[in-house]
């Protein structure tokens, strides 16, 4: 729904509040500045991925290549900066361009070659993972002490007035995307295409161009997140870096009210979804729940969340 109504996001917002209260009661350190900072940083990074994906999901598409792309771009970043000693600005711009460029390729394959988004980006998932391992020669890549691009490192992992940079970037992106999706003509067309591409075409919307652009945006956002992740871990093992991140990103969007059939969901929803997912992970550690149950807790809460949303608030999304 391009017009934003808070009703749809009320369910997840409630869940989030309840969860925060419960965790705080069980371990007050949850609200300690350092923990808030840590969590905000992770929210920022994963949230940027989710925002990008949300744009694609609105059109009824999907992007499974996100995790592998994070690995490939991270490896390229390290190679450019450390192995090739290239100028940080050039490398960053290069990485962003590669991300957006691969998004463009996805978009063209979907709109021009008429392939299913699932299959295009599944191939992306496989190919970029392989490419990451290949360019990194199956070595883990890192940034050492970041000599020569300390500012970049700080931008990724440092704080701005006490707020982690990734969170700041996430917030800015969220606002920008909110305006784009909910206020601009482009956003309206995205929702139109997601709901009924025929109707959009009948009304003279350049469906192919609009849809392609969605993948480009997703690729660009992924690239930004990839840079942040790379500096955050400071080590990119090409075979596992970013594994399953696409699922987190998709989960955040769906939790936030997006339908994978397209044409539904708001930026506020994704933001809440992204926050909820990271708080869940934080909670597992803070409450001392065995790590082996990490995934299970996440899955269970997501399921309960959407169930409560559907049953209690009687929202139908099937």
């Amino acid at each position, binding site marked *: *729904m*391009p*017009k934003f109504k808070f009703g749809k996001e009320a369910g997840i917002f409630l869940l989030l509040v309840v969860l925060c209260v419960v965790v705080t009661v069980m371990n007050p350190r949850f609200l300690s500045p350092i923990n808030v900072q840590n969590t905000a940083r992770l929210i920022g990074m994963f949230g940027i991925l989710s925002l990008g994906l949300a744009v694609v999901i609105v059109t009824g598409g999907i992007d499974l290549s996100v995790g592998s792309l994070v690995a490939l771009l991270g490896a390229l970043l390290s190679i450019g900066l450390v192995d090739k000693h290239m100028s940080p600005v050039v490398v960053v711009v290069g990485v962003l361009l590669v991300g957006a460029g691969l998004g463009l390729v996805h978009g063209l394959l979907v709109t021009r070659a008429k392939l299913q988004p699932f299959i295009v980006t599944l191939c992306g998932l496989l190919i970029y993972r392989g490419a990451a391992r290949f360019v990194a020669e199956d070595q883990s890549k890192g940034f050492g002490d970041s000599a020569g691009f300390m500012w970049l490192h700080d931008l990724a992992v440092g704080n701005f007035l006490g707020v982690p940079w990734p969170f700041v970037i996430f917030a800015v992106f969220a606002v920008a995307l909110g*305006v784009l999706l909910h*206020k*601009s*003509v482009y956003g*309206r067309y995205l*929702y*139109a295409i*997601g*709901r*009924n591409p*025929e*109707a*959009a*075409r*009948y*009304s*003279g*919307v*350049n469906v192919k161009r609009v849809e392609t652009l969605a993948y480009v945006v997703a690729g660009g956002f992924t690239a930004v997140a990839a840079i942040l992740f790379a500096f955050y871990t400071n080590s990119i093992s090409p075979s596992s870096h970013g594994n399953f991140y696409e699922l987190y990103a998709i989960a955040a969007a769906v939790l936030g009210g997006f339908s994978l059939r397209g*044409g*539904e969901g708001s930026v506020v929803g994704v933001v809440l979804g992204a926050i909820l997912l990271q708080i869940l992970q934080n909670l597992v550690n803070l409450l001392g729940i065995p790590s082996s149950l990490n995934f299970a807790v996440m899955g269970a809460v997501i399921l309960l969340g959407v169930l409560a949303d559907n049953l209690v608030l009687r929202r139908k999304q099937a």
Partner: protein
Amino acid sequence: MLLASGITKRYPGVTALDGVDFSISSGEVVGLVGENGAGKSTLIKILGGLVQPDSGQVVMEGRQVKIDGSATARRLGIGVIHQELSDLDNLDVAGNVMLGREPTKFGLIDRPALRAMALRALERLGMGQLVDEPQSSLSIGQRQLVEIAKALSLEAKVLIMDEPTSSLTAGETERLIEVVRDLRAQGVAVVYVSHRLNEVKELADRVVVFRDGKNAGALDKEQITPQAMVRLMIGRDVAVANEHTHLAGAAVLELQAVRTKRFPSHSVSFTVHSGEIVGIAGLVGAGRTELAQAVCGVDPLAGGNVRLDGKSLGNSVRAAISAGLYLAPEDRRRTGLVTRSSVRENTTLPDLPHYARIGLLERGAETQTAAKMLEELNIKSPSVETTVSGLSGGNQQKVVIAKWLAMSPRCIVFDEPTRGIDVGARAEIYSRMRELADSGVAVLMVSSDMEEVLAVSDRVLVMHEGRLAGELPRAAATEEAIMALAVGHA
């Protein structure tokens, strides 16, 4: 103004258009008629830029043009109302009307301006009150009106309307005719496609007839009569509305204080007897479809009871179907047909176990039934294996009817049964309905087409805002009497 010549379009197995010519000048209303599958919509899609012709050319205002998309058509001043609805239910009505032409301020959508522009278009149709409604809450008729408003707001030089009134009732149709006359006065060229030949007669300055993808002739203003059009369309006369004697038998379908979700405060009770055809009339959005769907179990009942042959039916489609109560729904693309499946698969879907032995289907029996229905309803389809999406609108509608006629009903509810169906086939369907009734079946027919209601029904029920506004026996059922009840007077 607009001149299309030698247009040919082939689809696998059919030649939709075979070198047709078509022209229109400004300030002219041209009626375009032809049997179902004659190629009318195909020509319109070509002019609207949605389909590319295999050969032929289009000249607009003296210049040859290539219309390669809706955007191009709009730029050239061609506005189109397509036969099938194409709206967005995740937008409001204003957003739908202005889709593709959103006014902007600082790069963002200028909502007030957008609303104002949409409102202006809607008000021409007397539908201003809809402007802020979510599209998802509209009935088919209202959605059709939104489509019309959308095309009107284009301020096109050539306005093409493909069956704009097929789901409208008399009131709205009257209004639309007024609007078209206005447009003509302003010098707009209007192409008007309809199977309601009286409308065409009333409006058109000239009629062009297509038959099997070719020009079959044209009629000038003074020559236009329904009979003349029919003769050119099918090459013979059609006897419309056969006289009959009606012998109502035992009560078959009984509605006892039925309440629907949308109008929970009104209850509806009536009975349909074996051997009679009961028509339900009313304005767009009066709740007829709502009622039909609740009765047949596809929508939950909000209250009351439905009995078939004295037995109470559980509120489920399957119970209804196995008891012999069938619904031929009004929205063929959404609920009537699996458009990606073949004619055969659609025809046998409701009665599939009938075609199976130990759970395995017998293709031969299916094909036999489907072929029989193709023949009987004169469905223009290359074969029973053709996918329904490749049929013309009217032929799709015939498949909706066919799948229920292929079974043995006790009571059958038709919701807008002849939407988009040509005169010839329409007569055939009416006589099938009569045969059913004569064989003891109860027939309930929801229709917005006044002529149809008057011609077919033994008894007419009129609905207004969810309640039964009145009942008229055949003798008392006149257009005026029905309208008076439908608008809530009397």
